[in-house]
């Protein structure tokens, strides 16, 4: 049995009437890279804030290496957190930033300088190490943000949407860093709402929405949830109610409605032969359809089935 480095049990947190986390439970193995996938407002940032110790008034428990995470402040020295924001000093250069943030941990100065050089090489900022960070591009800043979270060689790294707002090349670079960190034995929890990122990076994926885990497993295990069904995405100028009324009249022979919103619907077909008939059914009822895509079973289909909405919602 794999030893769990992090165990979250029945974590609940509300902001007034709004439930951010509802009996959220999750385990993480040593050296495991877990992708936490959820739309905006799913509760990902609340979870990271609780784990970082900056958010209180919650119920449930979090144990790290078998100890209550919040009972011993020293345990925080073993956890690295990369927030969504570029939380560092833009007037300092990259080396100075790493030395400042590393200085908050009990790292001897010589070792800290060596670690800063290693990390700058890892995130490909070695050549720009002495330049003020305010002159960096968005991607470079994101890489520095990740490096700061790693300065004290954490055993657990929590990343909150580390690729927001950067170009594809920079995104790939950060995903590479995360994979490398995982390979070196650091456990990683990585929140995102980008399906492709977790597909490329994580050994295990957890889908969360409305403060709770809906499904978790490897990519293959999750895809099995929707079965070997073709997924049809229908887009157009229609309302959710109109689409639902029309599709109910259709005999799909095992067709499953994954999600319906205004202007878009997702349907899964166990018998792909029924797709042309479904299209004809929609056209005959004059449903204004602009686009129709047929996809193989993938993580998006799983997400749609579990949450009833797409990640863009």
């Amino acid at each position: 049995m794999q030893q769990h480095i992090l165990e979250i049990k029945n974590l609940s947190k509300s902001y007034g009437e709004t439930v951010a986390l509802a009996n959220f439970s999750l385990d993480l193995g040593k050296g495991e890279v877990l992708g936490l996938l959820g739309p905006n407002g799913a509760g990902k940032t609340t979870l990271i804030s609780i784990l970082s110790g900056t958010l209180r008034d919650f119920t449930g428990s979090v144990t790290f290496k078998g100890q209550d995470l919040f009972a011993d402040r020293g345990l925080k020295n073993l956890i690295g957190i990369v927030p969504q924001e570029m939380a560092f000093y833009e007037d300092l250069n990259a080396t100075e930033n790493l030395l400042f943030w590393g200085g908050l941990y009990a790292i001897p100065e010589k070792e800290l300088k060596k670690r800063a050089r290693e990390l700058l090489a890892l995130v490909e900022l070695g050549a720009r190490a002495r330049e003020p960070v305010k002159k960096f591009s968005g991607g470079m800043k994101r890489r520095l943000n990740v490096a700061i979270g790693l300065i004290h060689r954490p055993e657990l790294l929590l990343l909150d949407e580390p690729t927001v707002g950067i170009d594809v090349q920079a995104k790939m670079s950060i995903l590479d860093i995360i994979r490398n960190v995982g390979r070196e034995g650091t456990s990683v929890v990585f929140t995102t709402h980008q399906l492709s990122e977790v597909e490329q990076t994580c050994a295990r994926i957890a889908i969360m929405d409305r403060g709770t885990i809906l499904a978790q497993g490897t990519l293959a295990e999750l895809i099995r949830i929707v079965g070997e069904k073709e997924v049809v995405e229908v887009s157009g100028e229609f309302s959710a109610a109109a689409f639902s009324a029309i599709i109910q009249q259709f005999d799909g022979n095992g067709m499953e409605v994954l999600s319906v919103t205004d202007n878009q619907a997702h349907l899964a077909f166990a018998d792909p032969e029924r797709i042309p008939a479904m299209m004809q059914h929609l056209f005959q009822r004059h449903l204004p359809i602009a686009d129709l895509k047929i996809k193989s079973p993938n993580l998006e289909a799983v997400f749609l089935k579990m949450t009833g909405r797409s990640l863009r919602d």
Partner: protein
Amino acid sequence: MKKIWHIGRLDLKLMVRDRAFFFWVLLFPLAFILIFGNLYQGSKTDAKASLTVLNQDQGRWGAYFAEKLKAPGIELAIVATAPETYLRMLVIPPDFSLKIERKAAQELQFRKDSQADLKAGAVADTKISQAIVKLLAELIMYGNRDMKAFFAARSPYRDLVQVRTRLPKDTITKIPSGFDHTIPGILVQFVMMMVLIYGGISVMEDRKKRVLARILYSSASPAELFGGKFLGRLLMGLLQSAILVVAGLLFFRLNLGNAWLSALNIVVFAAAMAALSIFVGSVLRNEEMIIGVSVLTANMFAALGGCWWPVEIVPPAFRALGRISPAYWAMDSFHQVIFFAKGLETVWPNLLVLLAFAAVFTALALRYFKISE
């Protein structure tokens, strides 16, 4: 403690690194000091204590007396005819010797230019008094002997008496200059302004960018984070003070009175401002608001507190109102220490009031200090 120092030191480093730092912290206050300092300065200065002796005496006693005025601190000019200009002049009358030989009463005139330096005047006054005492003592010792024999080459009565002058306890020996008021005043004003602006803006920016939250992601406690931010702002205030004190000592002969007590006054005042800046940075949401509030607060406190002019010259109601300003207590403390050479026994209530301000501002800062929006 190490983490508090680590956090505080960085804030100081970021302030010093600001491109406009030397303008705001050195050049701008120096311009104020020059304007106000010269405004309050006397038009003439006479640091060497020059004394002109107009010796009109027909005998030998006038010259003998004038010789006794020679001393290291005096620039003596003995003349036979009155010059057109002088700072201070002692007039030895034509019948000076005659009256001594007759043991008659003497009257010497001492004339001063009203604009002449008071400190140098005090030195001249003392030297004249010493010379008179010496001469009288010699005459008393000489008694009824032949006056003409007094000036014999080996007379045992010549230069017989030494007079040492000692001032009574608590006598103010240093006369304050205009700069002795202006430099502490501008120091207090700029400590307020710089600490509130730099300190307030950096707290606000660190909160908005979640830098404060990220510091707490480490094992640093909220108390260490607050302590670090407080220390950073205290160091900002002390650096601003040190720059102006050094400039004052180097260029304006600043008199600090009891330097330790003046330093204690600066530390306690800077501590109050450090706490206030955290409060300002916690409750205000953008840079423009912080600059506006800080400039307004610092200038209002400076005017009420007597940073620009001594509070003694303002109406009593205005002076009473000034007590709401921490600057008032700091400036009054400086006045007591620098102008009147007072010690801790006099200024402790001021320091206590400043500590009370620091405590209230710290309580407010703690109440409103937020790590994120």
